[in-house]
């Protein structure tokens, strides 16, 4: 039996259009905009000024505090200044505008041939590496747990439909990826290291097994959403349940995405800070979907300009299950951007909710075993107390409940609201 978690859903994976396309290097247009906040935590402080000459890999924003990550220029050229631009959430944040001179001169850090655990962690911090799966949590924080780590889990599940960025990475950079994973293992001094890959990517499983030489246990996972959820992949691979409101390290686990492991390899063995990543451009409205190696700071509209596009009504950054829908294409590629999807009217499901028929599908698919219909029911009655009894805080917001709901009720959205209100009330009381 394949390793897996309980419950979950089986959306059409839609990866066929891009999975066999070798990632192309995508070079930005005349300008890039490096956001000073590409991570969870404090935004960076700008360390360049208008008129400064920078190379790709020059730090342009310095981390403020421990939970923060440096940001780097992705091109060589001249700093034009700090501008306010919309990020994916629609919020206006500071970006450093750099005029690209098209030469792509690089500034790399010294290569570390045989680094110690601490040297790896320091390098990860200097290189500004964050969770490349999309969460963007600064990786050096994860690498500095205050508890012993037994299992390092590398997430190659890529359970979101459409996206093939991690898949291409595994297919094209297997050897380097294995080195990166082993560096992470060394940094954490973990006993075991597992690489979980969904079994709809048999070639990637084979490829990674070939390179891992038994140093890494490559485990095929059942293809099921949300197999790549942190708590789900830990359970699938170790049978450990991360207790409610606790972190993976509380059960001796650290989970990192394959993209993160590759970034670690780049930083340590190539001296290259984090400003490049694999990304998929897909969705029904994109005639020629592609996988790219992109540089951060490139506006989405510059990418889409190079594609043949038909009518679309939704632009999604990230996967269709958990990604953000964008009001426009002004936002730029960041360290955490795994995909940009342009979806047609036929592909998306608009929510025009009808009455709950009490079919229990939402509960039956919930990977956390919650009862979304109860939470939603009480939220509709404005009864937060009752809704809280059904533990919305445990929700991982994977969206499986809303996906299956035959009455098209926006269930996960309702749970998000409950979580938000509970947190607000909590902060008011304290």
């Amino acid at each position, binding site marked *: 039996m394949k390793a897996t978690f309980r419950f979950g859903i089986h959306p059409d994976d839609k990866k066929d259009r891009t999975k066999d396309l070798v990632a192309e290097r995508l070079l930005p247009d005349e300008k890039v905009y490096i956001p000073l906040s590409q991570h969870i935590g404090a935004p960076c402080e700008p360390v360049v000024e208008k008129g400064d000459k920078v190379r790709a890999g020059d730090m342009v924003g310095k981390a403020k505090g421990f939970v923060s990550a440096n940001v780097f220029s992705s091109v060589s050229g001249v700093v034009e200044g700090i501008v306010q631009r919309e990020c994916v959430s629609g919020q206006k944040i500071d970006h450093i505008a750099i005029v690209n001179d098209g030469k792509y001169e690089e500034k790399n850090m010294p290569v570390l041939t045989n680094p110690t655990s601490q040297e790896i962690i320091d390098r990860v911090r200097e290189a500004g590496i964050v969770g490349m799966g999309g969460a963007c949590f600064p990786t050096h924080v994860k690498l500095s747990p205050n508890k012993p780590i037994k299992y390092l889990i590398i997430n190659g599940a890529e359970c979101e439909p459409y996206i093939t960025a991690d898949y291409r990475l595994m297919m094209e950079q297997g050897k380097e990826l294995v080195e990166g994973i082993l560096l992470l293992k060394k940094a954490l001094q973990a006993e075991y290291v597992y690489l979980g890959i969904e079994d709809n990517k048999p070639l990637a499983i084979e490829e990674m097994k070939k390179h891992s030489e038994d140093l890494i246990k490559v485990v095929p996972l059942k293809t099921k959403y949300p197999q790549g959820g942190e708590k789900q992949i830990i359970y699938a691979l170790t049978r450990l349940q991360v207790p409610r409101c606790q972190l993976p390290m509380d059960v001796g686990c650290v989970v990192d995405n394959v993209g993160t492991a590759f970034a670690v390899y780049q930083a340590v063995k190539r001296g290259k800070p984090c400003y490049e990543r694999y990304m998929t451009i897909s969705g029904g409205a994109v005639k020629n979907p592609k996988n790219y190696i992109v540089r951060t700071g490139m506006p989405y509209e510059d990418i889409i300009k190079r594609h043949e596009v038909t009518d*679309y009504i939704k632009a999604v950054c990230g996967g269709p299950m958990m990604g953000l829908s964008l009001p426009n294409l002004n936002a730029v590629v960041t360290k955490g951007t795994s995909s940009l999807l342009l979806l047609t009217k036929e592909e998306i499901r608009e929510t025009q909710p009808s009455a709950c028929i009490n079919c229990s599908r939402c509960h039956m698919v919930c990977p*956390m*075993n919650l009862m979304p219909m109860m939470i939603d029911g009480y939220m509709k009655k404005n009864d937060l107390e009752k809704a809280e009894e059904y533990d919305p805080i445990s929700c991982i917001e994977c969206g499986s409940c*809303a996906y*299956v709901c*035959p009455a098209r009720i926006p269930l996960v959205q309702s749970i998000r609201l409950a979580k938000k209100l509970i947190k607000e009330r909590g902060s008011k009381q304290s």
Partner: protein
Amino acid sequence: MNKLLVSSSPHIGSSMTTDKIMKHVVIALIPACIAGIFVFGLPSLLVLIVSTGTCVLTEYLYNMLTKKPQTVEDFSAVVTGLLLGMNLPPTIPLYIPIIGGVFAILVVKMLFGGLGKNFANPAITARIFVMLAWTKAMTTFVQPIDYSQGFFNAMTSHFSTMFGGGVDAVSSATPLGIIKGSLNGGGGTISILNMFLGYTAGCIGEVSALALILGGVYLIVLRIIDWKIPVLFILTSAIFALIFYDNGIMYVLPTILGGGLLLGAFFMATDYASSPNTSIGVIIYAIGCGFITMLIRRFGGYPEGVSFAILLMNLVSPLLDKYLRPRVFGVARKKPFAKKE
């Protein structure tokens, strides 16, 4: 640039919608309806049309008069109407399905808030209502049409009886009636093969076990109903028969094939709104349905107890949901997530 739609994730969804679910249920009921019409002739078709029509019309008028959004297109009233009709004897006077249909939709469904809010299965509750009000009509069953002289002859005599005011149809005991009678020292024989195919006296939709199983399997394969409910319902009934009847092994098949057990287990007990929401709740519910059914059949006054059993367990399911909360992932088994201190 196009105007972009901005909304919270997920952006995709499964194609299964409420009306599709209900349409699948209707499709699953069709074989049993056809079997009933074939076995009992035109009157059963009339009953099905009248009960379904009444249910749809009642919902339509209710929504219209109360100025609520129209909901008949979700097909749930069709399901209720069909199920009600299938639960009636073929020769029932037609005012009974009309009253039953109005009761099911108006009282049990719409007054409690419509689809998904009904505390009990509308068709079951309406059946019990008309059963208690018109017991004689509800317990008079006729012999199946005699096809031994060929289909054409059978139809000729069937129509001449109906429209020519000929002899009244011969009333007959159902297999369960015969079993009940035999418990009290009565006689009669039953044929397992006829029960399986549907060639016995009974309600329109319950006679053909084969057709019901076909429809039930269809719904299970499409994951529209939870297999646990029919399987445990039927299994519990069979085990009960094995234990509580003398020479119980002889009663296992008649128990499963007879009366409304299959119709109830596949199509009525599985009603979403009135069955529990959790796995453990569903297990207790299904076993309870089987147990109460057999308690009534074996020890009660009625030969049949499926409707009462389902209605009773319908009433228990909110309690099961309340007290048998599923354990949330990552919450210790011993201390279920409870109220904050």
